[in-house]
């Protein structure tokens, strides 16, 4: 369907200190598929014009670095910036460079400053970009942090929507994009204190866990492969807000707890700092500090 009035929404997707897992997860999107996202009008009349993405774009080198700066200039306050990977502010940003143009090598943070300041909004995608994630694990050798924290330090005021997860579920990303296209930027009514859309991160995994009856009955698995609640094996479901139990992963086929593995709490701002050791039981005190959200 060709729609002559198609509005192109420019999107730049940049990668800091991450593993590409967020990108790979979004490739797994079921409805819409990644083809729908890249090629079709995601919402009638609106097309995501992904102008920069290191893993899939055709070009390389100078020609693609210049695409970023052209977009920033031409579409000031009119493009969405997706950030994958954490922001390493240590050593003046020299832990991650992301390209060279006219003999200059650009540290990731320099591109983030420029593209972040002038964006309509930033989607911090994945637990690294939202809260620092794995690279920020103690002793955090590269001073890795999330985009919001970095923007606060730098005085950059562009709105940031946090879509955490290691990796994030593709629906959490496409759902957030759809929200922007249909209803505008999510604001404090739609986000929790950690900047996450309540639509996906509004309930504790424990609230909807199919193994919850085991927990209530005190029937716990004592080793992998055994029937029972995984609490004793370190499950972080009671301290993790996400809709994994109902949404499930990879086209709704499975999920961590469904596969007998304790939830690792990968969407939490505390991941991995307070969610590890993975296979160690959550203390009662911590358990009781996580409440059902009422917003």
């Amino acid at each position, binding site marked *: 369907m060709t729609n002559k009035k198609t509005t192109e929404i420019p999107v730049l997707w940049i990668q800091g200190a991450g593993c590409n897992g967020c990108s790979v997860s979004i490739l797994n999107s079921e409805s819409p598929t990644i083809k729908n996202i890249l*090629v079709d009008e995601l919402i009638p009349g609106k097309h995501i014009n992904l102008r920069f993405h290191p*893993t899939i*774009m*055709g070009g390389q080198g100078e020609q693609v670095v210049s*695409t970023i700066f052209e977009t920033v200039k031409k579409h000031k306050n009119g493009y969405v910036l997706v950030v994958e990977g954490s922001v390493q502010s240590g050593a003046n940003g020299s832990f991650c*460079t992301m390209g060279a143009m006219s003999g200059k090598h650009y540290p990731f943070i320099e591109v983030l400053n420029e593209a972040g300041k002038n964006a309509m909004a930033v989607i911090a995608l994945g637990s690294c970009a939202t809260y620092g994630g794995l690279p920020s694990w103690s002793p955090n050798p590269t001073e890795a942090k999330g985009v919001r924290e970095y923007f606060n330090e730098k005085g950059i005021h562009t709105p940031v929507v946090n879509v955490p997860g290691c990796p994030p579920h593709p629906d959490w990303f496409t759902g957030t994009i759809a929200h922007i296209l249909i209803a505008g930027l999510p604001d404090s009514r739609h986000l929790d204190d950690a900047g996450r859309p309540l639509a996906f991160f509004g309930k504790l995994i424990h609230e909807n866990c199919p193994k919850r009856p085991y927990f209530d009955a005190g029937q716990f698995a004592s080793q992998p*492969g055994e029937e029972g609640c995984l609490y004793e094996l370190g499950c972080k479901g009671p301290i993790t807000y996400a809709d994994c139990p109902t949404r499930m992963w990879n086209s709704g086929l499975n999920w961590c707890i469904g596969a*007998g*593995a304790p939830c690792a709490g990968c969407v939490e701002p505390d991941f991995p700092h307070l969610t590890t050791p*993975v296979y160690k039981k959550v203390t009662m005190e911590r358990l009781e500090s996580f409440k059902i959200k009422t917003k």
Partner: protein
Amino acid sequence: MAKIVIDPITRIEGHLGIEAIVENGVVKEAKSSGTLWRGFEVFLKGKDPRDATLFTQRICGVCPIAHATASVLNLDSAFGISAKIPDNARIIRNLIFGSNYLQSHILHFYHLAALDYVDVTAIADYDGDDPILKSVKDFAGRGELGPFVPRYEGDYRFDKKTNQILVGHYIQALSARKLAHEALAIWGGKMPHQCTMVSGGVTITPTADRIASYLWRINQLRDFIESVYIPDVIAVASKYPDYFEIGKGCGNFLSYGVFDLDGKNPDYASRQRLLPSGVLPKGKEVTALDTSKITESVTHSWFENTGDLHPANGKTIPAPGKSGAYSWMKSPRYAGEAFEVGPLARFMVAYSRSVPEVKKIVDDTLSAVGIGADKLVSVLGRHAARALEAKLVADNLAKWVLELKVGEPVFVKYNMPVEANGMGITDAPRGSLGHWVTIKNGVIENYQAVVPTTWNASPRDSNGKPGPIEQAIEGTKIKDENNPYEIVRIVRSFDPCLACAIHVIDAKGNIKGKAIIG
């Protein structure tokens, strides 16, 4: 003399830059450099050893399973249970790993490499009825061609119709690689970053519905590999035959072997695997893998000179700005020589060891295409080996899943030692991967990983010998310095995984100073 700087090299995993000095149209000198460092070994120190499996897989979101596999093998060996893993768990680990092989190889050919050979813009003239291709035509008609353009121009050789068909396959391959992840999730819980592989076995139990559901996804992938993927690689080969002649590299091949067929031999180096371990130096006979011959050199890396050391005793003291250094990657060497790793290396080793399944599939393909075995060591040879390996793995996955025994155990109990050493070796889709761990006081004292792309994309070593990718680029004729297709096609044929390659640094003290540049 001209200097070509390509940074970033896109359509790979991670951050890579390449610099090439060109004289009279030929690359005189090539340098490959990674541009991201995260410090995995630094933050794993002092942590619960069992957590290494979940977190080392986060080194790479494209091939996390390779790290998870090397890591569980590493922990199994440290915990003294490498010969006690139940067969169900060994098989399920293979099913998880194998599914990601398929995902990774399909993704690599279609979504990382193919845009160097297939002209997406040909879709603008599509006049057929296929609804998918029509929608892509509409996309092209709107005039905003990101992310497919800009790109290098001037060497797209397929006719319009073939380009259109291949664009259709690019999209079909998006579904195929997704399907491979779905198959994986049946046993791995989710993907990327599965959650079921644990030291001692796996957390998931085999059930009849999981077996059937997995089998039929793999069967769909076998169809795709046989009827689409392999023919497309042959189509590219027929239009770009000059790429059988370039990008040869060092000609030495190394494999740790992959897919355990036997769980009872505690020595991974000699364990029976679908694709065997072995060392094949150029022009010599294949020999058994001896992991004690692995060393890492840091002469041209930004680390203090510590001599060539075995990774288990590796030292990594950053020295940014060190004179003569140009990379954050070390230079792994086997018996002092650079070795190529990856699908081509595995096939060269397996072929030399006369593994029947590999010999047959390679001989059949070579005779169908009408080329000699010597052409395999090339850009196209790497793509061909990858595609044939996808078929070999897929066919075996369909077999292995039926060997699972419903109701039998998936986990063996163990006591975690307070002090221990471990080693886990396997082959990732991109090549040989080794993890080493030292446990002290019940926590990780030292965790080392020597990863595929460090082998392939390493800088010059202590003897001044370039790494395999550097060797593959040097001597290459560049037709158009503004569109140096040759370089990116050579680099991508190795399927580099840079996030992987740059993590292996054990920082002591603060890192300050120069920008990390290519």
